[in-house]
């Protein structure tokens, strides 16, 4: 069930926030990580704002 939820979120370009937090804690412990909402907007912009164009096919 958790996996299905994760899959559906990744389909629309949202990786898990917890993984990001864990990564920040491990690699950049002194930097302040983005909040959940900032992270959501960052990913939204990255999915559609760049050259990837949302990675959609015909």
């Amino acid at each position, binding site marked *: 069930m958790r996996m299905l939820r994760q*899959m559906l979120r990744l389909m629309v370009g949202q990786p898990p926030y917890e993984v990001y937090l864990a990564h920040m804690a491990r690699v950049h412990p002194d930097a302040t990580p983005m909040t959940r909402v900032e992270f959501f907007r960052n990913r939204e912009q990255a999915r559609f704002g760049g*050259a990837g164009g949302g990675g*959609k*096919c015909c």
Partner: protein
Amino acid sequence: MKHIPWIILAVVGAVCLAVLAVSRGEAVNALWIVVAAVSCFLVAYRYYALYIARHVMRLDPNRATPALTRADGLDYVATDRRVLFGHHFAAIAGAGPLVGPVLAAQMGYLPGTLWIIFGVVLAGAVQDFMVLFISMRRDGKSLGELVRMEMGAVAGTIALAGAFLIMVIILAVLALIVVRALAESPWGMFTVAATIPLALAMGVYTRWIRPGRIGEVSVLGFIGLIAAIVFGQNVAASEVWGPLFTFTPQTLCWILIGYGALASLLPVWLLLAPRDYLSTFLKIGAITALAVGIVVMAPPLRMPALTQFVGGGGPAWSGALFPFLFITIACGAVSGFHALIASGTTPKLIGSETDAPFIGYGAMLMEAFVAIMALVGASILDPGIYFAMNSPAAVLGTDPASAAHAVTAMGFPVSADLLVQTARDVGEHTIVSRTGGAPTLAVAMAEIFSHVAGGTAMKAFWYHFAILFEALFILTAVDAGTRAGRFMLQDLIGLAVPSFRAGTSWLPGVVATALCVLSWGFFLYQGVTDPLGGVNTLWPVFGISNQMLAAVALMLATTVLFRMKQQRYAWVTVIPTVWLLICTLSAGSLKLLSSDPTVGFLAHAAKFGAAVEAGTVLAPAKSMEQMRAIVFNDRVDAGLCVIFLAVVISLLFFTVRTCMAALREDRPTVNESPVQLVPAE
């Protein structure tokens, strides 16, 4: 011992294929096709994909993927392979695998079935898998960069320019399908129009009210969609509102062009992202429901295995089986566009190299299964209805009586009453000449869904549900594609004029967006005003371009194998490359040079040009102005074919040159990222 279940599966697949191939005249159940496809796909995955993984690519579970070496929690995230499979499948599956097989059904169900099964196993899935592998070994770089790295800067630029043109054609042909599905259909138009305010409201919700709650907002949006479909019936029936949502194809064309320009300039969170939630989840849900529906209903195939149009002269698209079937079913069997996806986000998310066969090869098999379902959908319809929907008005006339007469004359007896009754069942004014594939598939889906739930009374609802589902993700693709095309164009122009690159100022962005919309808008307008219905002309151009991109991706893969010193396995990519080159080069040159005016653009231009000289107007044109437009469009399409041929031939030259150079070296010369081992747990 462990091979025994697989041998049984292979035998089951072979028996099903044999049943399909030898049945003539008696009713064959659609499940034979489904079982044949599924068993072939499973066996191919178990043996061929693993063979490629072990021997051709030599995937190494100890070698770290970009998701580990460059982990950032954002773009590079090691992801569970099942989760990533869903992500990759959602990105590659679109309208292509649904429309192509429906159009291909005009030759009967057998040629399309065989091409999808063998095409995907030997070409399509190999291409996706190879590109994913190549990109995964190079920090998840994009196709253009990969070609540049392995084949040189000139080849990279040619590939990028080719990809941009393909994008333009794809957007035009997708938009054309929407126009054909929504024109003169107030119910469909209302439901699709309703998604815009709905998406805006969802955008506001995720921005300010409950940020990031995708599940919640999607459920709310879905309820809104269903309400729009139900309410659309009243709108269509209303004397005041019905006409307000009834548009001619020309008006719809201008609306779409305006929409494309505006939508791609709006902030992404407002319209694009929320509609992407709806279209993605609806797509996955509808595909699953269709699979369940076909298995539950187990419908008999009513289309013959082969029709008389195998030799050419079909009404939905012109040309003979070879080479045109192989470009009509592009996505589903092999799709060059997937090379852009397989070198996009997916390689940055793979957790282990050994996940690549499941994701690269497996997801493409899944897409082929979608194509098989679309083919089944088109083949369970009465062939009379199929040809009445997919022939141009120039052949059928406009009323059910003339259409029934024309289709019966083709050898598919159908009564005018049946055409009227079918249109009434699905809640439309008419089903005559609703070309483009989407309406045909929607009638088939209505047939299947209403059999499972709701009966005849629900047919109209399910028809408009299917139209909405197709239109929704096509509109998302138009919007997202315009943005992507804009960045491609800025990169390309930026090579000559560096100040045109993204990020310098807003003006180049607006100019590039306008250029992009005008390009696909031109082809869309041409398709909409085309007296033969447009799909007839544009779909082959799209198919040729898409298959050429696939050939380019496979040539890149061949080059990489040679440079890895793995050339003795290069047949894995060389065989599909050669087949695609044969198909696309012969289809491209036929489209260009064939003396048959229904096939060759130049012959068609010459025929109409001569008539203009003589001062006569040829049907279906109605004025001298239309005659000149037809000649002009033919020449543009011919020019496009020349460009595609030039792209693929020049890349073939670079491939051969690079492979020869690699052969002369005594060690590998690939530009892979340095090997890093997976850290011990």
